[in-house]
């Protein structure tokens, strides 16, 4: 069983991970967010398109797969850092405004970090490190 999984190759496992992360982000953004605006939708679909293209390339072991995966990882990382900064600053703003009696507590900050970090910062950073460990693009 393990041998069979191993034979599938790291590339294809990364492709599956790309699809899973893309689906999670899409569901979170499209189903959970109460707002729909082009300023959110355009970057979101750009990131999803890149992740999907990367997954297809990695699954098919295409030549261009590494380059597209690198671009997808960098775009996702930058978007993640931007979103995280926005959320944390908003929480800090409310905390400062309402004071300790009514503002978001440390738990809210921790929850935000846990929800955003794995998919939009840790995963793309891991992708970049993995690509780097493979050496120059084929």
């Amino acid at each position, binding site marked *: 069983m393990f041998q069979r999984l191993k034979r599938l190759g790291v590339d294809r496992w990364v492709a599956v991970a790309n699809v899973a992360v893309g689906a999670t982000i899409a*569901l979170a953004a499209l*189903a959970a967010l*109460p707002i729909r605006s082009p300023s959110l939708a355009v970057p979101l679909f750009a990131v999803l398109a890149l992740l999907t293209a990367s997954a297809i390339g990695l699954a098919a072991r295409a030549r261009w797969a590494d380059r597209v995966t690198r671009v997808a990882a960098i775009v996702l990382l930058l978007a993640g*850092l931007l979103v*995280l*900064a926005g959320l*944390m*600053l908003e*929480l*800090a*703003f*409310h*905390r*400062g*405004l*309402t*004071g300790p*009696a*009514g*503002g*978001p507590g440390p738990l809210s900050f921790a929850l935000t970090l846990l929800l955003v970090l794995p998919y939009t*910062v840790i995963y793309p*950073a891991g992708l*970049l*490190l993995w*690509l*780097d*460990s493979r050496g120059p693009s084929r």
Partner: protein
Amino acid sequence: MTARWLPRLLIAYALVLTGGCAALVVWLSPRDEPRAGASEILSAWRQGALAARRITAKPAAGADPGAALAAERGTPGTTLVVEHVVREGRVFTLTRTLFGLSFVAGRDGVRATLNGRDATLTADDLLRERLYRRTFGVDSEGVLDRLANQLGCGKDELWRSGSFRRLVITRTVLPRDPPELDLIRRARQETAVTTSRLTLAIKDAGRFLVQRLREDGRFSDGAPAGAGYDWAAHAAATVFLAESGERLDAYELRSAARRAGRFLQQMGSVRCGPNPCIGGLERGDTGGSADTLLAYSELATEKAGVAFRGLTAELASFLRAQQRGNGGFFTYYDRARQRGAGTDRDDVDAQAVLALARAHRITGNPADLEAARRGLRHLTGRPGLLGARDYLGGDHRVCVAMNDLWERAADPAALDYCLDWTSWGALLQIDRRSAAVAEYRGGVRPNLGWVPVPDLTATAQRTEGAIATLAAAVRAGRSADSIRALDVRMAGGVELLLREQLPGARAYLRPDAEAESDLGGFTRSPVDRDPRLATTAAAGSALLRCLRAVEPARGATGKPARRRSVKH
């Protein structure tokens, strides 16, 4: 290459972000002591207008806090209010939008200083002038206008050269001298949940709706010009009038309900295939038909409403025809194609289930009960997104219907859903720990953000759903421990509604308070001034359900029920 720069980049980012957030919290937090000699703002209000004001230092312990305006106090109709400046803080002046966002609605005031002169707007001033935003902050242009007027300068000059401070304010209303002798008015100031207090609040809400009902059966709502007539609010108000009229045995309320019901019948009815429905030229509306069916079902319970019984059966037949195979409902009926259409919507499903459950009491048709039961199972048993149900966005009518159906078709799975729905609802409720404004505790925020002002319609609906869940849980024999938290949350919501019913705790800010023209109504939020039909109907229904829950038997009015207080 990446392995070298990426960790450094992320560490630098984390440090900058953490530092930025900490700096923002520290900079914005109102930490400073109020300016010496300006910690108390004593105002005399008369007929909704400011009669006199003194800004003073904190009086010595035991001293009369209203002494500075003792002469005003003796004038009839005067209310003295002390606004205590608890702390001061900075505001953003980078842009006017950010300036407007730098205040907590309902709590904060502002002081502007220009060329050594001060101008102050207290929380009461901002409420009276309608300058708080419903969600967050203030109307910056309006605030600058008022401050510039006080200083006798231009708004732009004040913005360029003035300095601004945020004032965190708490408030004490001094007892009237002579004291209020009208027992009913004094009773309205009580917020403990007793049967007599609930009965008074329901009567006031009913009277408000009757006053807003025109001869032709249409309600006059204070909705903004251009907004279409709110048929859902009309139906909800009709249901509340019928229910409260029956409960309080008040002919005036029942008669008004019948008039509003006939207006629904005359203005909204069209044919949808073989059945009548509520809608327009192209479509029959399932949600609107369900609301109307609910109203008809309540009107049909009394002898004078016998004309509504046939209508109830016909409209129930339309709703049954709109039901899909999975138990959900088509959102509309396409009159050209003669069939149901539209995507599944939980709110429409909930409306239809509740309406059919109530209609079954009138029609006695087992098909209505079966349709309601199937709809309820669809709403509470269906796995939603990734298997997780939408507990936060769930419609309160699901739980009202679950409770209504309990004696006829008990559904323990639906009760479990409602218990989870109420538990998740705690995230939206403002408790003592998370209340930026203490008076708003018990209220429900419109969304998951950090909005400090509750939405009173959402509060009423969530509270009604919680009361229905509690009633069903008690009947199902659930342990007292498992429902204690729910009981406390429900009481918090009811107490807020009692506090916010007009004229409310800030009646002295309303010019018409003595005339009682808005008496009994509810505004959309505590920082709004105009009562709304939909909110009043929702709040009235919640209070009525609470009365039924806490009153042991008919005729026991006046006897205090369990005295509750919110402790979160």
